[in-house]
């Protein structure tokens, strides 16, 4: 067992990269949420209450300032509840809990999901790998938030772009698909919420330099940050 420690550490370059971020203090805590069903509300409330007790919420301005000054200005470390996929239950269940404790979340929205007709949303979730665990909660078949709900969330929380269709972008993804999923998706989101969207988040998160073909679209769209599995990278 002992002989395997160093080779295991060296296998994936990101292990030592993460080690270095932690030593250098360049990290943030994140708690990732997908489905937030009513049955789990008590657990979510315990979690958000604990976040509010021990950690500081993180605004976009906090991140900008942390990158600009390299100094975290609040007494408690920052924590981002990261809420993925734009599910309706994230508005109905998670939002009231966040509001109760005054804690800020970052919502990662696949922006074309909201415009899918209700009758087609089930098919859309199946096709684009958006797993709905308890469809019976919404017998009307609307699993996505509507735009009014997204706008309500946007008042006190960060809205980030999680592609348009919850679409996995590969190195060899066609140009027009990249354009739609990186650029058009952001424009739609910005038009609907009426403010800039600065953060792009891949699916299954590869870091910025993994997909150099996507760089020109990230630049054209005007994103300032790219979030992946293990990193938040400032790109502009």
């Amino acid at each position, binding site marked *: 067992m002992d002989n395997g420690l*160093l*080779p295991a*550490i*060296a*296998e994936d*370059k990101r292990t*030592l*990269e993460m*080690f*270095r971020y932690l*030593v*250098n203090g360049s990290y943030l805590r994140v708690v990732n949420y997908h489905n937030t069903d009513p049955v789990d509300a008590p657990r979510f409330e315990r979690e958000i209450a604990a976040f509010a007790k021990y950690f500081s919420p993180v605004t976009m301005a906090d991140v900008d300032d942390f990158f600009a000054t390299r100094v975290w200005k609040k007494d408690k470390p920052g924590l981002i509840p990261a809420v993925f996929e734009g599910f309706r239950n994230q508005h109905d269940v998670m939002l009231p809990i966040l509001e109760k404790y005054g804690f800020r979340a970052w919502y990662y929205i696949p922006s074309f999901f909201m415009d899918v007709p209700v009758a087609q949303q089930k098919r859309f979730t199946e096709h684009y790998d958006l797993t709905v665990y308890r469809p019976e909660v919404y017998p009307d078949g609307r699993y996505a938030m509507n735009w009014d709900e997204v706008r309500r969330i946007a008042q006190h929380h960060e809205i980030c772009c999680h592609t348009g269709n919850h679409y996995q972008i590969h190195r060899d993804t066609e140009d027009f698909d990249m354009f739609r999923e990186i650029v058009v998706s952001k424009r739609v989101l910005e038009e609907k919420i009426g403010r800039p969207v600065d953060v792009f988040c891949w699916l299954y998160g590869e870091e910025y*330099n993994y997909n*150099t073909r996507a*760089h020109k679209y990230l630049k054209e769209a005007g994103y300032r940050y790219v979030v992946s599995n293990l990193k938040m990278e400032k790109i502009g």
Partner: protein
Amino acid sequence: MGELLDAVCRDKRTLEMARYLLNGSYIRVVNYHVTRPGDLPRFRREVAAFAQHFTPVTMADLDRFFATRVWPYDKPGLIPAVFEGWRTHYDVYAKVLDEYGFTGWFYVPAFFPDVPVEEQIAFCKPHGLRLHGHWEDYSDPRCCMTWEELRRISEKHVICCHTGSHSCITENQEEAVQRREIVDSKRRLEEQLGVEVPVFCWRAGDEYAHSRFAHKMLAEAGYRYLVSNLKLEKIR
């Protein structure tokens, strides 16, 4: 532990290099520039020691090491890396290598041999080629190898492209300049030597991922390897 960790984590390449070493993905290199006849005894001692303790590295060895991830020889590989195309490389150093049957890698600025002999000394300073007074060893002003000498060297050794004019290639240069230094340079070497030149080496340049502006030209030229300060990267 604190101070050590801070130092180790300052530059990301420290842990990258540690990872290469743990993974066995490295090769020894000894860098040479001017190789004056007065230093002949020293070169002999060095190359004799290389031949005793190490295995020379051919292009085929490197290709196979990347393909199989297995170094097939008893002794580790070592590359004598000989920079700038100086006349002394043919007259002095290559002869020592040949005495011991050891393979050298010669990094040549491809347009240097085409500079008229009477202009070569004047060409050096503005192009960052340091003469170290070695023209004193010769009665004529030629300081670069001739194409004929390079052809003879290429029979037993590896010729790599070290830009066209020993230039620093930067992001803000015109595409025509980048093409001349990266693409046309390779074509010129291949045309004169009649062999493939699969390795490009910056004059001062970063690793592949941090040199995005040059990816297009490196691909157009068809290089398979990129050599920078600390790395030899297989890029296709």
